[in-house]
């Protein structure tokens, strides 16, 4: 058949004009041009931005200082009439009675409270829909307060769900006026309860909450600390940095809450320079749901800082409390895996703890004398690092490992009597969004 067709074609007397090749050339040029044109795209262009973060106001008896990521960061005080941002005079800004709004920045700010009787550190965070606070107390000896900051320009609506060692408390709904904050004392919220966890849910508005834990015994202070907020409950929690406990002056406790409807079965593993182990009774321990459970870590000794890994069959939230007998205490919380983080520690002497199966962290810092330096921290299970005697101004960490690495810092005063933990976690997640485009199609079908 094909042969027949071929012979038909050959025998034909049709004369094909040579100019047909000109037409073919025109079409070829057209195709070439069309393929040569770079494909213009207006869709899918992504933009990323760091939202503004809020540092807490002065809480308790001490002073609060914001450690800003850079000199002349744009800041403004919440609850003040002026909505204009101003440039900070230095990288360290004293915070008055008003919370401080820091313009979005890739680096993370944090605040340090120093009352003389204790120190506490907290990350400055962006508006969060969900914040879990595991820590604090509503007991008579405590003066804990939850500061809810609405940095937005419209009223915010916030629900607070309190958990005690006995029950889930009724939801409390609050309306926070625009550009203001509101303080709720825990002794009013969960009166008489030592074991407290809070779930702060933002229904509308740009809200950031801070929990400040201040304890006393009679007239003497037992210390102060911020309870850093943590994200949604998870089945796998890692609290990266806990101070070593070798001389008996340090006691530790973990507080867990299973907010779901089923009891959880947990396993707890402690990592330290001395090795990894699961304390007796923590392998397959059942945690009842809906109640705050405090579990003392008795007889826990370690020559190095530690990390705690909690595995559970139900989502839970947890925190670890380290108490320096009679002088101070600190709450450590679980953190998400480290990616990249920059902080300003001017004037402080932090110690960093990293934990993970394969630790490979790049560290760049500017020393106290302004010299740029770098280090490469490699290890397994747990690794420690501090900038040394030259001190540190700004520091950045990058996880170079393929496996997750978790980090935290331990802050102590020069005498070592006061303690604070700061999770190595970005205060504001990089908000990635598709760049919106002005387009009339939004007004048409």
């Amino acid at each position, binding site marked *: 058949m094909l042969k027949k067709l071929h012979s038909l074609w050959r025998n034909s007397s049709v004369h094909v004009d040579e100019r047909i090749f000109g*037409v073919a050339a*025109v079409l070829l040029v057209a195709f070439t041009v069309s393929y040569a044109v770079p494909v213009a795209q207006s869709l899918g262009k992504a933009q*990323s931005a760091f939202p503004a973060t809020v540092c807490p106001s002065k809480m308790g008896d001490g002073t609060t200082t914001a450690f800003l990521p850079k000199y002349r960061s744009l800041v403004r005080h919440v609850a003040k009439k002026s*909505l204009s941002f101003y440039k900070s005079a230095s990288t360290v800004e004293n915070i008055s009675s008003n919370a401080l709004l820091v313009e979005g920045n890739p680096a993370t700010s944090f605040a340090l409270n120093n009352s003389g009787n204790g120190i506490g550190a907290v990350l400055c965070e962006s508006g969060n829909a969900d914040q879990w606070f595991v820590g604090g107390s509503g007991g008579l000896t405590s003066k804990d307060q939850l500061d809810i900051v609405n940095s937005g320009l419209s009223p915010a609506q916030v629900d607070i769900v309190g958990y005690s060692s006995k029950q889930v408390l009724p939801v409390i709904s609050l309306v926070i006026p625009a550009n203001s904050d509101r303080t709720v004392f825990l002794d009013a919220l969960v009166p008489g309860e030592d074991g407290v966890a809070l779930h702060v849910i933002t229904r509308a508005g740009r809200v950031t909450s801070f929990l400040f834990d201040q304890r006393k015994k009679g007239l003497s202070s037992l210390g102060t600390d911020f309870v850093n907020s943590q994200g949604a409950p998870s089945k796998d929690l890692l609290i990266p940095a806990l101070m070593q406990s070798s001389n008996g002056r340090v006691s530790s406790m973990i507080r867990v809450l299973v907010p779901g409807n089923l009891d959880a079965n947990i396993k707890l593993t402690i990592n330290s320079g001395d090795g990894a182990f699961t304390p007796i009774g923590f392998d397959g321990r059942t945690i009842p749901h809906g109640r705050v459970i405090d579990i003392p870590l008795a007889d826990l000794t370690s020559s190095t800082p530690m990390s705690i890994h909690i595995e559970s069959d139900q989502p839970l939230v947890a925190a670890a409390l380290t108490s320096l007998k009679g002088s101070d205490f600190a709450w450590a919380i679980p953190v998400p895996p480290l990616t990249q983080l920059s902080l300003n520690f001017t004037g402080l002497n932090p110690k960093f703890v990293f934990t993970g199966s394969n630790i490979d962290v790049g560290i760049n810092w500017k020393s106290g004398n302004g010299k740029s330096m770098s280090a490469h921290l490699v290890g397994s299970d747990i690794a420690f690092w501090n900038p040394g005697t030259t001190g540190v101004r700004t520091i950045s960490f990058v996880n170079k490992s393929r496996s997750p690495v978790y980090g935290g810092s331990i802050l102590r005063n020069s005498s070592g009597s006061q303690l604070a933990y700061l999770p190595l976690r970005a205060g504001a997640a990089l908000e990635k*969004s598709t760049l919106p485009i002005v387009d*009339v199609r939004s007004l048409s*079908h």
Partner: protein
Amino acid sequence: MADKFFVTAVVVTHDGATWLPQVIAAIGSQSRKVDRIVAVDTGSKDNSLKLLKSAGIPYFQEDREMGYGDAIDHALELTPLVDENEWIWLIHDDCAPDKKALAHLLEAVEDRPQVAIAGPKLRGWYDRDHLLEVGVSIASNGSRWTGLERREQDQGQHDDIREVLAVSTAGALIRRNVYEELGGLDTNLALFRDDIDLGWRAYVAGHSVIVVPQAVAYHAEASSSERRPVDVSEAFLHRPLLLDRRNAAYVLLVNSSWWTLPWISIQLFTTSVARAIMNLLAKLPGYAGDEIAAVGLLLINPREIIQARRYRKKTRLISPRIIRSFIPPRWSQFRMASEGIASLISQAIRPSAKEDNRAAPQSYSDIGVIGDSFDDPDLIPIKDDPLWKILAKKPHFILFFLMSVISLLAARQRFGNLSGGALAVVPQSGLTLLSQYAQSWHLVGLGSAAITPPWVPIIGFASIVTGFNLPLFITLLFLLAPILAFYIFFRVLTKLGSSRYYALVGAGIYAFSPVLWASVNQGRLGTLIIILVAPSLFFIAPFTRENENATWRRIFAISLLIGLFCAFNPIVLAGWLILQGYRLGINIFELRHQYREMGIQKLLLAPVSGALKRRFALFITPWILVTPWSLAMVLHPTQFFLEPGIPLQSGIRWPQFLANPGGPGAPPLWLISPVLLFALTAFTIKNLRTSSFMATSAIAAGIALSAFSIQGHGSFANVWTGPLIAIATALVVPGVLLYAESFIPTLTVIPLGKRHLVTGFIALVTAISLIGTPIWAITGGSQSLVKANQEQIVPAFVTALADTPAKPKTMVINVIDGQTMYEISRGSDLQLGDADVTIAPPQEIVQTMSDLVAGSGITSSKILGQFGIQYLFLKAINNESLIRIIDGSGGFTRMSSTPSGIVWKVMGASPRVLFVGQNKVQLVVPSLDVSAQANLTQPGVVLVAEKYDQNWRLLLDGQRVPLQHAANGLPIFTIPHAGQITVLHDGTRHRTLISIQLIALLAVIVLALPAGRRRREISLEELV
């Protein structure tokens, strides 16, 4: 037959030697002889006197400027009254009565004592069956009303004696004593309309006027047909039309009841203006001037009318309204006028129809084979075929019916107010589009001073066919587009000589072309018009070089059509300018030697540059016709590639290669359009090479351009190449089909070869396309982007709020195909034409919206509020993260949350126009759509929340206040003292440009229309 009457014939001559011999003979040969005859010659320069003398008719010589009435009066003065039965018979020197005319006239008046005037039936001098008058009246607009159709033939249809308002003085028999009692003909009416005036006066004096059709006179109408000069003293500038119109107005104004005068005056004026415009369009400016001057002459001298009315009052016995029954009703005037226009258009369109009919044999006897009796219809047995046989013989009826069914089924989701795809919401009235074109500031986004494209008013004006019901017009257009395309292409192919069957195939290819269905489904209004106009436009061959020798009328007609064509798609304008520019370059190159020899001035005046001038006119005229839009495109050349309406992504390169523009709603590519095959095949045919090359080039341009994406019309998409594909289709299909019609029969006699294979392949592809596309159209293809009665995007309460004095704006955020988009609304969805004038918002808005969506917009509400954006509406309610971001951004208070979206109020937002006083007091300046007015009690500043434009004005107590540019890019005015303010957008420049465009359009229309002929240029045979 003996009678009691004495008849005095009065002949008035004035250069009438051409007709006078017959007139004298006609009088002399009357069966009832005249009893007395007298002639008055008003200064004839020809041999009229000699003729009178040789005929033995007593005559008097008068001045050349003497009017007709004066001449009659003078003749009667010299011929004394015989008795009360004396009648005068007025005979014009160009009016020959039939030999029994007088006898019939006298017979009719004998038994009718109330009759004072009787007139004959007037027929043409040359065409003796041509009925000129059977009595005459006057319309309320001054027209001379005969009640006859154009060139009506006398077949006895008006042969009853009846009362009429008046009869022409040509052949009128008038009772002498009544004539004298009435004062004769009004001497103010030296010529024309004196007959109607006399008739009117006779009625109000208690007499009547009849026409006696049995009496016939043949009239040459020498004066009104401008066959002799009008020398009467009243004839200003000796212009017959001017005198006629002036006299018509005079007759109405002096005879009508006083209370009808205002209405009559209005009618006279408007009719004069309308007639003047029509005369201008017909390139008869002299006649246009006559129409206007006629009314002017009366206005200048009202005393004449007052005196004439006083005089008539003396002889009036009955109300002037007695003659009401003779005034033609308005509807019959309208009917007659429209029939006349239709007849003229028909003649213009089919000028050779008559000749064709004459040339074609009308009967067997015309062929000369058999005798006349064979054509007797009674002898031809009529055999009724069954219906199927009749339809089989007329397949186009079946296919039209099928096409209609397919279109209806495919459009089942498009019955109603259409929107979607590239088509924005259609306003309720076409007048809205006309006013939009005239506006200098468009309420789109933050406002725009962009030029509205000319397709907007054209569509608005075209909606006149649906009584300016624009939604109905657009619905019908989209519904009927395939049917119309089918019909138009069928007509063009048959006119080109194609047989009915091939024409149907061609029409099918065109009506089921992918570009048409893609355009319908995507709402491509501009391309649809291109598809519908292109076949007819290309039929007049606008691209050929023969146009360089064409008449100027043809040049401007082509330019006008191309201008209309380009108004709907700038890409076509770009193509036209390139093509004509290229040809113009060749013309210039060809004249280089003549330029060296003659210089530019002489060359341009020389006939040799005719081609160049015509080519230049073809190049520049369409461009001028679409100014100022085309000027804007010169400044922003990417606008050449934007289709009317909302930009929409379409196919890239391969669809274009297959003559399918692609995109949502386009037919699938496997339904291969045969157009490219046609184009390539046409290249092997010598006389089709040019069209093939143009079609292939259009497709190649489409392939290349489809890869380019451009920003414009408020959105971003690749270049829509539908018009190029439509043009390629219209260019190539007719030629190939005509060739195929002669070529395919030869396939049976040539040896089997390539020709058979190629032809078979093309036929197969065509058949698949013709069968597959209709099936697709009524199944998957009916799910188009364009749908009827779609829900409004902007919530109704936001629409309602937009009408408050603060004129708030709403930022509408939508997520379409994963892309977050926003646009500022003035309270409604995007309307037809809005996208074409949309311009980018200020950078402040762009940055603010980016920050807002990213969650970092701390001051978003403040900035949006400054621009008068009082509401934020999120259409995408499933985008929870965006909702949370906006909720958390601050400054936005939720107002409502419904399944259709969430509305936030922007706190502290400004109104459209805000006054901030010295003491910081803020006042909402009540605003209309564009302007605003208020009475301010203190100095301060006025902020206008519209995009900055140099034409924003603020008048403080009538004085202009300087415009300033606020820091955020808004217009701002500093008010130095209290007073009345008016904020407005100055559209003077815009209106000037539009006026220039209208003048250019009018000029081109006039130049393109066939010229009217002066009456003296029309042969007498045509007239009478």
